[in-house]
């Protein structure tokens, strides 16, 4: 292995870990704040460190501190399988985290003629890894619910288990249809396939090529991650908190964080399979590499405009109302952020000028393209996470039998039909 290969491998691993773990506080914040804004109210917005609220993200860290400091209550009625009871949340968390590791964040970067994967686990069977590891998460839920010796927990666990069975089938069958379409099990090759166009106009994204599969896959993903409207396993209005009823402090937080990591992973997989992964529509990596100077030239005016509008929005919104006497350091925060953002914009502008002057086959261009693709991926990931949150605060929860009905009677036959149609078309075209 060359030095470059090691550096790329380490950096992609760090990036994956950061994207999965640092996304937890951001997602918790986004969920609470998004919920507030969608329901015309504010959000936890007072917590700050020296006046810096970061729009409320600090609250998530305060929550973590609270959960760590909390009494580690251990229910005395649990006699058997204590170690498994303690391990169960970790299984769920680890499964969600590991499943994220096969997502490609950018196309293979070519350094000195060596093609390197920008993927934490550089494997070629990405989708199988995801299906195998992602499904283990429910084992942690079943263990936790069963060993809690609590009827609500047991109900929650059995709901989670049977829901997983009901939706893993349509999920797997849509994946089969997508495998027939893409003719690969490698996530990165799937994204490369999606860089092309269909009929010369539309980007060949999975959702354009296979709209039915995309809908079924997204619905099944919502069920897999136990998110609303399929959150029957928690079902706080019916069964207290489902499988987490007996869990406290950090054990509970493990389940809670696992849920958000799973949601993040689900978003990443949906993007990679159906929304062109790290690619912009109509732009393949080769095209981007050749014409990066043009992209940089386009980005140069767009970036300051975007930053200008962001600062204007921040100045308008990051202030207290007239009725509140103390400013709480918001003016100072706005000032600091304005300065920092301006400096960052200037640095990026300089880098862009440097990149425009570089020849298109230089290493700098390849790195810039990779960073650009990572940025596109992160933006898409955040948008899809926002979609998950939007759905949660829009739809009421399905009744449990309706969940099963939808899975077994509609999604399963539809995904089977989809396979046949896909196979016929693929055979007919080739």
């Amino acid at each position, binding site marked *: 292995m060359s030095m470059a290969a090691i550096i790329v491998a380490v950096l992609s691993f760090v990036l994956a870990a950061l994207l999965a773990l640092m996304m937890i506080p951001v997602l918790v914040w986004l969920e609470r704040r*998004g919920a507030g*804004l*969608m329901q*015309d*109210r504010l959000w936890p917005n007072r917590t700050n460190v020296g006046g810096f609220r970061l729009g409320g993200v600090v609250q998530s860290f305060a929550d973590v501190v609270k959960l760590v400091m909390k009494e580690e209550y251990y229910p005395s009625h649990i006699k058997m399988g204590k170690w498994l009871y303690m391990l169960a949340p970790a299984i769920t968390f680890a499964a969600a985290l590991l499943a994220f590791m096969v997502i490609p964040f950018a196309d293979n970067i070519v350094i000195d003629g060596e093609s390197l994967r920008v993927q934490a686990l550089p494997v070629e069977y990405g989708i199988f890894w995801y299906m195998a590891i992602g499904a283990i998460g429910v084992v942690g839920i079943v263990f936790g619910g069963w060993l809690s010796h609590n009827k609500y927990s047991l109900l929650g666990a059995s709901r989670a288990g049977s829901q997983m069975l009901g939706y893993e089938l349509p999920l797997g069958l849509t994946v089969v249809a997508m495998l027939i379409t893409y003719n690969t099990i490698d996530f990165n090759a799937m994204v490369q396939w999606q860089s092309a166009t269909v009929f010369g106009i539309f980007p060949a994204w999975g959702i354009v090529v296979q709209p039915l599969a995309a809908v079924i896959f997204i619905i099944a993903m919502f069920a897999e991650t136990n998110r609303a409207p399929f959150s029957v396993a928690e079902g706080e209005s019916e069964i207290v908190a489902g499988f987490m009823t007996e869990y406290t402090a950090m054990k509970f937080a493990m389940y809670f964080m696992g849920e958000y990591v799973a949601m993040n992973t689900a978003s990443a997989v949906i993007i990679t399979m159906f929304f062109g992964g790290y690619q912009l529509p109509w732009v393949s990596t080769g095209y981007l590499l050749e014409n990066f100077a043009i992209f940089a030239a386009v980005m140069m005016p767009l970036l300051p405009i975007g930053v200008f509008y962001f600062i204007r929005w921040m100045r308008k*919104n990051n202030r207290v109302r007239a009725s509140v006497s103390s400013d709480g350091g918001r003016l100072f925060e706005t000032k600091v952020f304005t300065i920092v953002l301006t400096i960052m914009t200037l640095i990026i502008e300089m880098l862009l000028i440097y990149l425009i002057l570089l020849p298109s086959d230089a290493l700098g261009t390849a790195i810039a393209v990779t960073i650009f693709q990572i940025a596109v991926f992160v933006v898409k990931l955040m948008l899809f996470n926002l979609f998950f949150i939007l759905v949660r605060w*829009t739809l009421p929860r399905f009744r449990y039998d309706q969940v099963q009905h939808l899975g077994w009677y509609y999604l399963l036959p539809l995904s089977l039909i989809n396979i046949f149609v896909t196979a016929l078309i693929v055979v007919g075209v080739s």
Partner: protein
Amino acid sequence: MEKKIKIVPRYGVSLKDKLYLPAIYEGLKITFKHLIDNVSDSNAIDVLEYPEEQPTDITERYRGLHRLTHREDDSVACVACFMCATACPSNCIFIEATERTDNVDEKMPKRFAIDTLECIFCGYCVEACPCDAIRMDTGIFSLTGKNREDFVMEKEQLLAHKGAFGEENSIARK
């Protein structure tokens, strides 16, 4: 007699309803519009910045913290009849009666305490009182303390609470 029948349209039979996705789209549109509106101007959201802003819409019927009313000579209106303590579903009113020697009445409470941690603020004590001696019209909705004893309101504290809606003295005992 003419039968009054209202025929309610049955939803959920058309293909559009059964698909469910158009309805989800409509719902998402509404929440997304609220999100965008509120993100673009979060100070326009109609909320109360509690505790800087205090609620102004507490009505006379609001059951706040209790108080003991006074007679016109500022003495306690309560005659320690134990009606409130009997009516109390959470048994949180503790009364010790004593003889009243100032010829205004025969009996008065020596101790009148309400454990507000036990109290469920149902207002039965107010309804049970024959002398209009206990009221819940203080408009006080938040009570804080450092230990449990702080939440047991004694007679002096209850007498010190002011009514928020003008009626200061007991109407039944002048």
